[in-house]
């Protein structure tokens, strides 16, 4: 099922985000309006659940150039999911602005940002095909067109022949493939994923990582990917964004110098070990402080 990672020089153009941390705020406007560009400016968020106040995010600035694969890591509860929810327009930040592909994300816009969640995100009463068609059917796209588009995306994620399966008839990895197909079906230029492979076993997880890289290379989307796994972060990313413990701030941005396509063997290179260590040092520091 898994086609080998095909991408050669998957679009990672010389990027605006390679700037040092201290200057990260300044050049946002340069890329903000391009399709596929993501710009997070001065975003803070405080949850207030009937008087119980939680400061989740503190002054987040993040610019992502089109076509980049950016991975966000950080200690548990630091606000990664919250940040992603805001970048997808599902939650409004208490302060700051988020612009994706030139559009302020005040509400979800699946034409701009496709979202993939960790689990339980497919509708169990719909087949794989119908799940992928679902967003199109909400917009009343004609039946024939949406069927063709959904089939095409299912083929892209390697699921030809599984169109009529229900989610409970699919493995965990296959379900996430369907989720990815659904996230892509409206051809957004940006795909955001919140720990999409966290519930999978290690083998499936590695395969799915390769699959995502292949899809990314084939489609040239901007990808924002949240994970707990240091190896996953280093293996997938152009750039790793490290967040502090709550309230989440960006404490490091690491360019990954590993060549593409990534291979399993790279995981045993010194550079890979260095990357992992650099991330881990920061996170461990955060956790022991908190």
């Amino acid at each position, binding site marked *: *099922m898994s086609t080998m990672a095909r991408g050669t020089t998957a679009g990672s153009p010389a990027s605006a985000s390679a700037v040092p941390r201290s200057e990260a705020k300044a050049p946002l406007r340069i890329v903000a309006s391009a399709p596929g560009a993501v710009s997070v400016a001065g975003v803070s968020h405080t949850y207030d659940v009937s008087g119980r106040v939680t400061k989740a995010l503190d002054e987040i600035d993040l610019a992502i150039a089109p076509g980049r694969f950016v991975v966000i890591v950080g200690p548990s509860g630091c606000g990664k999911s919250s940040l992603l929810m805001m970048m*997808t327009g*599902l939650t409004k930040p208490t302060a700051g602005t988020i612009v994706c592909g030139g559009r302020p994300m005040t*509400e*979800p*816009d*699946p034409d701009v940002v496709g*979202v993939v*969640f960790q*689990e*339980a*995100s497919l*509708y*169990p*009463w719909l087949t794989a095909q119908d799940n992928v068609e*679902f*967003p199109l059917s*909400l917009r009343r796209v004609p039946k024939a067109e949406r069927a063709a588009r959904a089939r095409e995306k299912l083929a892209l994620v390697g699921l030809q022949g599984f169109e009529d399966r*229900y*989610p*409970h*008839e*699919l*493995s*965990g*990895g*296959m*379900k996430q493939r369907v989720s990815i197909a659904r996230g892509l079906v409206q051809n957004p230029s940006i795909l955001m994923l919140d720990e999409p492979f966290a519930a999978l076993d290690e083998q*499936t997880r590695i395969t799915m990582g390769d699959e995502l890289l292949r899809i990314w290379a084939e489609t040239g989307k901007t990808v924002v990917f949240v994970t707990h796994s240091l190896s996953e972060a280093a293996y997938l990313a152009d750039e790793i964004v490290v967040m502090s413990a709550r309230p989440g701030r960006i404490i490091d941005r690491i360019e990954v110098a590993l060549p593409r396509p990534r291979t399993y063997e790279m995981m045993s290179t010194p550079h890979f070990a260095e990357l992992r260590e650099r991330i881990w040092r920061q996170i461990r520091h955060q956790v022991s402080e908190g």
Partner: protein
Amino acid sequence: MSLAMASSAARPALSPAAVRLLLGIAVLILWEALPRLGLVPQLFLPALSQTLAALVGSAAEYGAHLLHTLRAIGIAMLVACGLGIGLGLLIGSVAPLRRTLQPLASGLYAVPIVILYPLFTAWFGIGPQSKIVFASVYGMLPCLLGTMAGIQTIDRQYLTVARSMRASRWQVIGRVLLPAAMPTVLSAFRVGGALVIVGVVVAEMLTSSEGIGYLISRYRTLLDSPHVFAGILLVVLLVVLFGALVQQVERRTAHWRFSTRSGEAG
């Protein structure tokens, strides 16, 4: 005999369906045998054959009254389920409404509404209206409560996903909440629908001039047991048929609920 016992013990136990069938046959045999052997007075329990004879002998009368009953059941079921499920969806998906109305509805459900039936006849007369209204109210409550409960147990993630795809409020209700709540709604409908049937028949027995319930009650005053049991048999058949129908619908629309969540390794 002992051979049969041994062989059935060697094989896995009879399937539940087979056991149910055997039980049903046993009941029918007892129904025929007990009165015939004089173990039960014929007035209390006329033999099955006598009951069937009464049913066939007065087929035209039963048929005509059955039509009245079915019509009332049909209308009441539409009202009970339509209102019950519709209101359940609405109330269940609007938190303040749910907090206010749910205790009220469950409280009302605990009240035996039959005691209100005389009021219904006073308001709506003894024609079909009163029994339809009565059965509707009677059957609506479980539909309403079941749908509300179904909506509350829905995985919140389904709603987040719908929002990420920018579904409108109505799309969320119709395309996410309703299908997700379908299994619970159907089991609620199973209970509510059965109560509708009971409600109509009981209403007919109390105050009415038509319908199966009316026939049962009239033949009882005439001490004509075979005809009474013929009526009862019809009602039982109705309930059984309804149950089978709902089960079919469940198989078709809620199959995903009854299958395991884990798939093959992949």
